[in-house]
């Protein structure tokens, strides 16, 4: 009667699996899930406020990976990255204090200092120069975050009053634009990313029977820190309060004196920063980057966001973790099916949309009072 179950077990990789492999698969699942979750949060935040699927989100993920490639391998002069930092400072200041007001002296100083440093790195520093890792990461994340704000500014803000379908078409358009522009600027050649040795040297646990890459511990840890930071901003700060209010009722929130466009820009900045962080860690794990690398993880993270309940940040993270785990389990248990890993995710999307379109944590769609 259960013959089919038995043969299912026999054809899987389970009989031959040992503890070490099991632990490794577990960490792989956690890592992949964290990376999906970080991207999914950006989708869900933007959707929560604008009811828009930001299709360019996967491209921000890709840009994050490229920016860290530039700042570490120093293909593009680090100076250009410095310019991005200065610009990001300016924009963040603008969001917080208003663009019309003159930035305070420290910010002006940075605005001057960074281009000067940039010129130095570009023309005078030795060619092998590379930014130290922490600085490289912050630079890349800030630059990608800035790109997220620019995407909103040029592709979505002019269409705020337009029908939602227009913004959706614009989203698809800007996504193709970023990908094509990246091919032009960075060429379509896959690039190698520098992997710091300490991340890639396996650690031996349980008397050498279990091997884990430090990277598989670092990714979930960084993800946890970033998500906690985001939740702090959303739940404990004034702009976070405005974000939560806007997601429910834009007009009333404006009546309270909230500049909606600034809060939306902040939403894009935060979501893009998380996507960039994910892109960087993705590049460390799969160290080949190319302009189209963001499409598949982007779509899968979108599935994760829908799965978790679009609009819910917890849901996006949980959806990402579950999707990552399911993908790894399928590949680990049935290696012969690994060619179908993408098809599996999309099948999941169709099933969710058919049977539980609001997702795991999705609120019931209530009418506004």
């Amino acid at each position, binding site marked *: 009667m259960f013959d089919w179950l038995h043969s299912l077990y026999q054809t899987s990789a389970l009989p031959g699996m040992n503890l070490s492999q099991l632990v490794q698969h577990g960490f792989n699942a956690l890592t992949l899930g964290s990376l999906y979750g970080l991207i999914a949060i950006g989708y869900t935040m933007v959707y929560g406020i604008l009811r828009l699927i930001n299709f360019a989100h996967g491209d921000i993920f890709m840009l994050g990976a490229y920016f860290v490639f530039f700042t570490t391998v120093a293909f593009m002069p680090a100076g250009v990255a410095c310019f991005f930092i200065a610009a990001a400072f300016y924009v963040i200041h603008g969001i917080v204090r208003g663009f019309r007001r003159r930035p305070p002296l420290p910010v002006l100083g940075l605005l001057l200092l960074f281009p000067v440093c940039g010129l130095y790195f570009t023309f005078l520093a030795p060619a092998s120069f590379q930014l130290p890792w922490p600085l490289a990461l912050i630079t890349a994340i800030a630059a990608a975050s800035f790109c997220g704000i620019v995407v909103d500014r040029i592709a979505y803000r002019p269409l705020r009053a337009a029908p939602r379908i227009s913004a959706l078409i614009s989203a698809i358009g800007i996504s193709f634009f970023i990908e094509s522009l990246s091919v032009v600027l960075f060429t379509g050649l896959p690039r190698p990313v520098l992997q710091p040795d300490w991340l890639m040297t396996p650690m031996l646990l349980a008397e050498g029977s279990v091997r884990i890459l430090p990277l598989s511990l670092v990714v979930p840890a960084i993800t946890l820190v970033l998500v906690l930071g985001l939740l702090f901003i959303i739940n404990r700060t004034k702009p976070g309060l405005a974000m939560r209010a806007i997601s429910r009722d834009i007009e*009333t929130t404006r*009546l309270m*004196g909230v500049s909606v466009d600034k809060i939306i820009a902040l939403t894009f900045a935060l979501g893009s920063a998380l996507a960039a962080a994910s892109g960087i860690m993705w590049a460390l794990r799969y160290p080949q980057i190319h302009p189209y690398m963001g499409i598949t993880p982007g779509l899968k993270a979108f599935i994760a966001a829908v799965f978790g309940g679009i609009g819910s940040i917890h849901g996006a993270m949980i959806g990402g973790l579950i999707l990552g785990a399911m993908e790894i389990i399928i590949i680990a248990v049935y290696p012969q099916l690994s060619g179908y890993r993408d098809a599996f995710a999309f099948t999941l999307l169709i099933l969710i949309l058919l049977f539980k379109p609001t997702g795991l944590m999705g609120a019931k769609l209530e009418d506004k009072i």
Partner: protein
Amino acid sequence: MLEINDLHVYYGGIHAVKGISLSIPQGQIVTLIGANGAGKSSTVRAVAGLARNTRGSILLNKATILGRDPEEIVRAGIALSPEGRRILPHLTVEENLRLGAYARNDKPGITRDLEWVYSLFPRLRERLWQKGGTLSGGEQQMLAVGRALMSSPDLLMLDEPSLGLAPLLVREIFSIIRQINSQGKTVLLIEQNAFAALSISNYAYILETGKIALHGPGQELLHNPQVKEAYLGA
């Protein structure tokens, strides 16, 4: 303090307000009365900066505010408690109130006003950590008024604060409006409950199909035979 001159508001192809002029002196309670669709809400929405398609002029202390964004108008000192209360149901009572103070940066002032709102509406203090959506209709109305007060406005606009409330609560709300006014806030009140509104107003305007049909001091209109027949049901 607020002067409206020949204001027109178009709303989705409808000419909702057809050239009204009115003035609201400092420290008074002024009421707009009228049936559904008379243009009351469109008028206050235009003052608050929410109506996009407008013509005419609105001056706050002689500075024009028509065409400015709602967030600027709040900072200029005008707050609106909108029709239907529009409290944010997923935020707590305190968060709703703090959102009302979003435009301000003076912490001591915000704390003081928070205390003031809680003293006006002690029931809100009891429900501090409750989500706005779990409040009763009357409590939600109190929250909406309190939230508007949190921006420390000079002019407080209340759009139908008595709508859908039990008679006892209506009386309570009106007595609190008078209390707020006695503390120096100018009030622009929109009402269908003409009797209660006229009794506490210094001056009132009656709107019919987008135009001012009648205006005068509140007590005078209360005894006007036309008004009695059309709005007071006597």
